[in-house]
């Protein structure tokens, strides 16, 4: 794990009297103390083990498919701890490549000496790998070269099976995504960013959700009969040459079926465009927490 010291805090001291103005601050700490933030990443069981068939004992694909990842490469960079008053507590500019199919929570960085208070603007990026990208022990040099060659930020390879059917896919995504204003549920309440406490370290996990690629909508239908579901039948059907390898080119040639899918404001006309848009939503914050997602 890398250790970092915070960068300059240009405005921090100027507004220390904010709460005296009467508009109230939710900042639970008001001393000059400091704490640490440990950033990690994890792919959950969906990426480490499998996304199963939906059933009474497990939730998953509603159309009988299951997916096992072989590889789930993701490149994190530019993690920023800041607040809505314009202060920046710390910034990690470097990028690091992870394979979240490898089991376990992986450390990204330990940031020490962060002023103990609420930091409500935490952000990060998932962006294409470059020569300067560092390599986490979960990924290999060959992985890094693959990512550089394709200008990929995210690369997934997996096997999908349904009865006797088996499809393989390996999709690289040459996209860059900004995750802003991350927030999560902590102790039953929504918390913007994170709260650093005196002399303690908080764990902040940049969780990757491997199931998002297969959603049929992100915006829930108001019709209770239409459930948000994981589907693979339409992706499998896109394998037009029937070689059991589903390529992104084949997905890009498959129109989005509006009877099953809702583009949910993502502006996707094909299965390929929809999956590519969904890939931008894999980045999460402290488990189920979310961020505002923007194209870089």
């Amino acid at each position, binding site marked *: 794990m890398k250790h970092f010291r915070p960068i300059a805090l240009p405005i921090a001291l100027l507004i220390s009297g904010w709460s005296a103005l*009467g*508009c*109230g601050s*939710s900042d639970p700490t008001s001393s000059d103390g400091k704490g640490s933030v440990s950033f990690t990443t994890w792919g*959950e*069981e*969906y990426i480490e*083990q499998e*996304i*199963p068939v939906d059933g009474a*004992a*497990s*939730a*998953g694909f509603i159309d009988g498919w299951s997916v096992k990842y072989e590889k789930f490469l993701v490149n994190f960079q530019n993690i920023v701890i*800041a607040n*809505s*008053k*314009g202060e920046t507590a710390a910034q990690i500019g470097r990028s690091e490549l992870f394979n979240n199919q490898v089991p376990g929570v992986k450390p990204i960085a330990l940031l020490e000496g962060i002023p103990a208070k609420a930091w*409500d603007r935490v952000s990060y990026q998932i962006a294409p790998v470059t020569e300067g990208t560092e390599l986490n022990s979960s990924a290999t040099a060959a992985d890094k070269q693959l990512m550089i060659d394709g200008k990929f930020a995210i690369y997934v390879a997996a096997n999908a099976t349904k009865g006797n059917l088996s499809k393989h896919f390996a999709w690289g995504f040459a996209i860059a*995504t*900004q995750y*802003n*204003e991350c*927030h999560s549920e902590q102790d039953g309440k929504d918390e*913007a960013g994170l709260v650093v406490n005196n002399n303690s370290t908080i764990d902040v996990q940049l969780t990757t*959700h491997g*199931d998002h690629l297969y959603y049929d909508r*992100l*915006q*829930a*239908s*108001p*019709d209770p009969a239409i*459930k*948000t579901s*994981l589907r693979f039948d339409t992706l499998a059907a896109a394998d037009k040459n029937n070689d059991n390898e589903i390529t992104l080119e084949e997905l890009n040639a498959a*129109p*989005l079926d*509006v*009877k099953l899918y*809702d*583009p*949910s*404001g*993502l*502006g*996707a*006309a*094909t299965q390929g465009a929809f999956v590519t*848009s969904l890939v*931008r*939503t894999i980045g999460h914050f402290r488990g*189920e927490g*979310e*961020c*505002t*997602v*923007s*194209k*870089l």
Partner: protein
Amino acid sequence: MKEINRAIAKRTLLTIIGGTLIASTGFIGAALLHGCSSDSGASTGGRRVVLQTRVTLDPTAISAFVTGFGWKVTLTRAVLATGGFYYFDGAPPLVLRSNHRPWEFAERWLGIREAHAHPGHYQAGNAVGQMLEPASVDLFAGPAELAAGDGISGFYRSARFSFSAPPMGALATALGGHIVLTEGRAEKVGEPLRIFRATADLVDVERSAAAGHVEGCEFEETAIESDGVVTVRIKPQVWFDLVDFAQIPAGSDATPSEFPAESQPKIAFAQGLAQLSAYRFTYSKL
């Protein structure tokens, strides 16, 4: 596997999470009395402002546009029944332009121009303004001035667009009970010309947008400090993006082809009407 169950159970709840909706002027008055805005960062939130309302056709739709299915569509008519508009300080799930907060200059400098997002995770935040009067609008008749709304000063970041039924206003009769009526021509190489008439009722749109409310539309981020005009730009190309015109007859000027119930064109058109990317809100000072 227990963890997987927990995760997916939570995710299948994906929905637009409404924020604190201030649905009446009285409620906005209460916010004014409170005197402090939300955590949106606005430092001067809380003063009442009058917001004129304007609805206009996005300039990119005045001439022909090409859909996701490769059809070149030229609209000749687009009439719709609008309901109330609500404005919020929560970030939209789909950011189409760069943000304008001073402390986010670095992001602008980095070149954020267009965004995709996580609509399922939209949190509206606090309601900061509204326009409540239903109306009917002909997008090809020039900008339409609707009733004035009101709000409180502070940051505006997202909005709710809504359709209303039955239609109200000067064009209610022309709409014939529908919430949207469009006419036009669709062309594609190798296909005969389609002359169409597409309509939608509230029940059609409600399959994607509850009560005809399109949540999470982008309100170009602005710190509103004084009275002004809220302009809603409508992009009909989003309505037609996934319509497969190959599935309707050619039609004619005298008898334009309509979208049959439960057909792909009908479903795609109704779904398009519910897409948040079809409606963009901006503010300008008076």
